[in-house]
């Protein structure tokens, strides 16, 4: 009877000999070539063995999830305990349009909603301040608390979690709180995240969201964190964003490094305010881009968890283990998607989603295949959600916690990514921190250089993009899905409604609230966000609030470096 034999312990010498034998056979089969590198520039060998990784280097790394430094996962149970939340971005047109989509998603079982406002809102303007042709094409127009009430009609805001794409001064959150107050929902029940609260990432990478000059914006972020820590126990006021930087061209290692450096900056800003790290750190969350470089992304997230845990414990002095947890939302990367042969993007998104899941994210957004063109069609959005369900239910990706842990490749790659990330962080520290580095244009230059280098690799053919520089087919541009424009009559009606709203509310109450807001901005000790909430409740519009703060704190002009 054949019995499985016990594995014999292999000595390092014996293993080295085996690997040498393999190398000879490999070299005979494969001609010598340039080293293969991943996006962060780390060399990828054809084979990894126990010689490449013999165990965790950090003495405290227990190698189990839920324990410092959390390399294998921030919770002991990970997805067996609770799946990642599916949080798909939604936003188009007028508040009623959003409401329709939101209710559909809730009916399908979603427990979390995301709110994407119109570009005009991102820029800090009311709908009547920008060319009408540009309204509502990429998100929903919401200019005041009553609009928010309409957008959330019939939505149990006290029970579900809402992610608001809402940069400083966080007017959307203020409108949400006004709605809650009117409905009698206690603020302590309002759950969600202020996505796009990271003004540093907006300053260096995605200028879409940058509204107010950096020093003022940073102050408002800390004000909001303080407010949330006190009044909104279920709200994550800070989402530190790596997505913008990676989409702008930063390599995965750079994106993680710059994001952690931003996290350091915000933590230090809070500490300088005298806030307790065990109070604010548990509500810091992260948001990352997930590229198609599967293993690199997994290693990036594992390294990120480890580094952040150490920073929280050692650099910021947090004592509660809950403060050390690196919680993050991931979104599959739109820049990997192509306009050519768009259905190919479904395959790309699948690999990206896998990278995020295997990397241990807490919530995931999968792009639709037509994301390149505009806001996704309903069918494409369904496929994006189905992709997540398939990975979870059919591929059983969630049954094992950190399944790539222990892989010699992934572990040594995690270590290599960690080293590179720490080098970048050191460089930023040397420049005086992320705030200083951003104002000097250093981070922008690094990102721009990486973007240019990537483009050169694509142009030279070194990096193949299927359908773009290889495997091309003739395509009829007319067959591409066209942009979804919002209904012009509905938008006109909205604008008329906005005018009526402005005429009907109490001009005195609004003026007084805006004066209070300006006074808070001029002071050094009053909470600006609290004043924003008061202004929202008094009926001030988004554009009025932003204009007041821009006047006091300066118009946000990002520093662009080519």
């Amino acid at each position, binding site marked *: 009877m054949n019995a499985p034999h016990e594995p014999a312990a292999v000595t390092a010498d014996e293993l080295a000999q085996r690997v040498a034998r393999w190398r000879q056979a490999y070299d005979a089969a494969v001609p010598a070539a340039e080293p293969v590198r991943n996006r962060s520039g780390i060399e990828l060998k054809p084979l990894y063995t126990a010689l490449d990784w013999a165990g965790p280097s950090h003495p405290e790394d227990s190698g189990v999830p839920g324990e410092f430094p959390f390399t294998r996962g921030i919770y002991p149970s990970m997805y067996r305990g609770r799946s990642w939340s599916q949080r798909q971005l939604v936003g188009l047109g007028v508040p009623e349009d959003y409401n329709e989509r939101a209710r559909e998603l809730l009916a399908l079982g979603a427990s979390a909603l995301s709110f994407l406002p119109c*570009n*005009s809102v*991102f*820029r800090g303007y009311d709908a009547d301040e*920008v*060319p009408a*042709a*540009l309204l509502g*094409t*990429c998100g929903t127009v919401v200019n005041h608390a009553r609009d928010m009430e309409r957008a959330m009609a019939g939505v149990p805001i006290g029970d579900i979690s809402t992610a608001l794409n809402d940069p400083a001064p966080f007017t959307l959150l203020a409108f949400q709180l006004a709605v809650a107050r009117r409905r009698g929902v206690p603020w302590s029940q309002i759950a969600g995240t202020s996505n796009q609260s990271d003004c540093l990432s907006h300053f260096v990478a*995605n*200028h*879409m*969201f*940058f509204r107010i000059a950096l020093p003022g914006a940073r102050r408002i972020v800390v004000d909001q964190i303080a407010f949330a820590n006190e009044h909104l126990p279920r709200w994550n006021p800070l989402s530190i964003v790596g997505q913008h930087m990676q*989409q*702008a*061209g930063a390599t995965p290692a750079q994106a993680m490094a710059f994001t952690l450096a931003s996290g350091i900056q915000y933590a230090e800003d809070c500490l300088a305010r005298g806030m307790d790290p065990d109070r604010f750190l548990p509500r810091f969350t992260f948001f990352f881009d997930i590229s198609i470089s599967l293993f690199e992304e997994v290693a990036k997230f594992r390294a990120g968890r480890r580094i952040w845990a150490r920073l929280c414990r050692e650099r910021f002095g947090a004592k509660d283990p809950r403060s050390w947890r690196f919680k993050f939302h991931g979104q599959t990367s739109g*820049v990997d998607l*192509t*306009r*050519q042969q768009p259905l190919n993007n479904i395959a790309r998104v699948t690999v990206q989603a896998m990278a995020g899941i295997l990397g241990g994210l807490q919530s995931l957004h999968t792009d639709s295949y037509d994301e*390149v*063109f*505009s806001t996704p069609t309903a069918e494409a959005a369904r496929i994006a959600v189905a992709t997540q369900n398939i990975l979870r239910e059919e591929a059983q990706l969630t049954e094992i916690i950190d399944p790539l842990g222990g892989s010699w490749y992934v572990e040594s790659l995690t270590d290599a990514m960690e080293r590179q990330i720490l080098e970048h962080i050191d460089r930023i520290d040397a420049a005086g921190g992320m705030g200083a580095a951003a104002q000097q244009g250093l981070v922008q230059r690094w990102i*721009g250089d990486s*973007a*240019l280098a990537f*483009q050169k690799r694509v*142009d030279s053919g070194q990096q193949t*993009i299927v359908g*773009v*520089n290889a495997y091309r087919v003739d395509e009829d*541009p*007319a067959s*591409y899905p*066209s*942009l979804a*424009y919002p209904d012009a009559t509905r938008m006109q009606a909205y604008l008329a409604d906005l005018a009526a709203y402005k005429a009907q509310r109490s001009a005195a109450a609004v003026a007084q609230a805006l004066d209070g807001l300006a006074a808070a901005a001029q002071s050094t000790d009053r909470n600006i966000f609290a004043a924003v909430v008061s202004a929202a409740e008094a009926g001030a519009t988004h554009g009025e609030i932003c204009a007041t703060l821009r006047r006091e704190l300066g118009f946000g*002009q*990002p520093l*662009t470096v*080519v």
Partner: protein
Amino acid sequence: MHERPPKVIVTKIGLDGHDRGSRVVAATLRDAGMEVIYTPPWQAVASVVKLAMEEDADVIGISSLATDHLIVPDLMAALREAGLADVRVIVGGIVPAADEAALLAAGVARVFHPGADFDDIVDTVRRLARERAHGATA
């Protein structure tokens, strides 16, 4: 006579703020020996016109995502009104096929789509700048 290198403005009008593509284009044009003025996003049409006038620009490159291309015809009209009809305009980004025809009809010289060949962009800009220099009146 020593001809100056092409002077190109790379800019974004409208509300979108993504500028990775335009940054890479600006760097590429610079590396090709051109003088590039690279602006932050959300430039008002009037500002772009003033910029083109003061710098005596040869070509304006508009980077457009979302629906920003819808206001490019406004820019073309403003340029004509300011006496700058000879300044060439190109657009790069996400532009649906139907809208591309409208842009060309409005006077845009060329529309580039994602995945466009960068050599093509550089050659086009050079050619357009040369056309303007030779056709320009004092």
